[in-house]
């Protein structure tokens, strides 16, 4: 019964997500709407973790099985990948490096500024 109620909450949020996604004037993924909705309901305490954690944790722990069918679908697109295999791998590697460096240096910069300003505040006080 517990599991069924949890399924109703999670699938219900997804269904509301689909409705909102259809109504929105721009295209926004329905499952992301469902995610935001569930997060907000948890945050304001309408939902408690225990109301969705059995099914939720099952889904989170085994997440990658749900992409397996899509991964196998690569069979259909093998020719596109094969003719662009080297650029494909290069893009994965170069983008990883750039994203990593950009994120790390941004965070270090922001934290240095935060330290600077909090120190300045203390001095004034």
């Amino acid at each position, binding site marked *: 019964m517990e599991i069924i109620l949890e399924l109703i909450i999670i699938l219900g949020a997804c269904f509301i997500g689909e409705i909102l996604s259809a109504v929105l004037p721009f295209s926004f993924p329905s499952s*992301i709407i469902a995610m935001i909705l569930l997060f907000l309901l948890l945050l304001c305490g309408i939902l408690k973790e225990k109301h969705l954690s059995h099914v939720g944790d099952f889904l989170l722990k085994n997440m990658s099985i749900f992409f397996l069918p899509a991964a196998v679908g690569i069979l259909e697109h093998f020719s596109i990948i094969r003719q662009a295999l080297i650029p494909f791998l290069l893009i*994965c590697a170069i983008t990883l490096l750039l994203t990593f460096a950009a994120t790390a240096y941004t965070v270090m910069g922001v934290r240095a500024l935060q330290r600077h300003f909090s120190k300045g505040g203390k001095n004034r006080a």
Partner: protein
Amino acid sequence: MLNTLTSSPLFGILLTLGSFSVGVMVQKKLKTPLANPLIIAAALSIGLLQLFHIPLANYQTGSSYISLFLGPATAALALSIYRQYPVLKANLLPVIAGSAVGSAVSMGSVLFLCKLFRLEEIMAKSLLSKSVTTAIAIEVTQQQGGLAPITVAAVVITGVMGAVFSPLLIRLLRIKDPVAAGLAIGTSSHALGTTKALEIGQVEGAMSSIAIGTAGLVTVLFALFL
């Protein structure tokens, strides 16, 4: 005979469950990010389908029941974001700035490199979201009109590279701040990189987990303007 049997939805469902279990078992034995369960399971499924000349459509009759749960699994990410909310709140500005700049650089560099290598537009659309967690990446790809299987391949390859090379990148780029290191790992290589971040340290692991959600959301928002 084989065709009739494999066109039952149970065939695709069992092949998915079975090959995934093998993937997880191999990962547990080898304990390296290179032995990714998804890669092993996909290779195994593809191998079996090819070997017995089973049409992909037969497999998909069953496997579509499993991919149906991709949406609910994405929605369940709310639970993990909620659990990290205290850490998120305490580091709000660095987290948001880091994942916003990181995701923008990721998407920008994909678009630039696809132009540079003169790849077809469909590749750019499929690779755009490759730094974020697979569930969200697939959503972005579908919204952009790209090919989900290419996205999955790119996301997993990026994630494995992230898990393998993160410690090296931290040293090369001289990142001394564990918050910066964790956010960089999560923003660039999502959940797969996070497994490595958790090994490096507690702060790195927590920050990396948070970045999975925030980088994913920011990427969805940026994609709206493309």
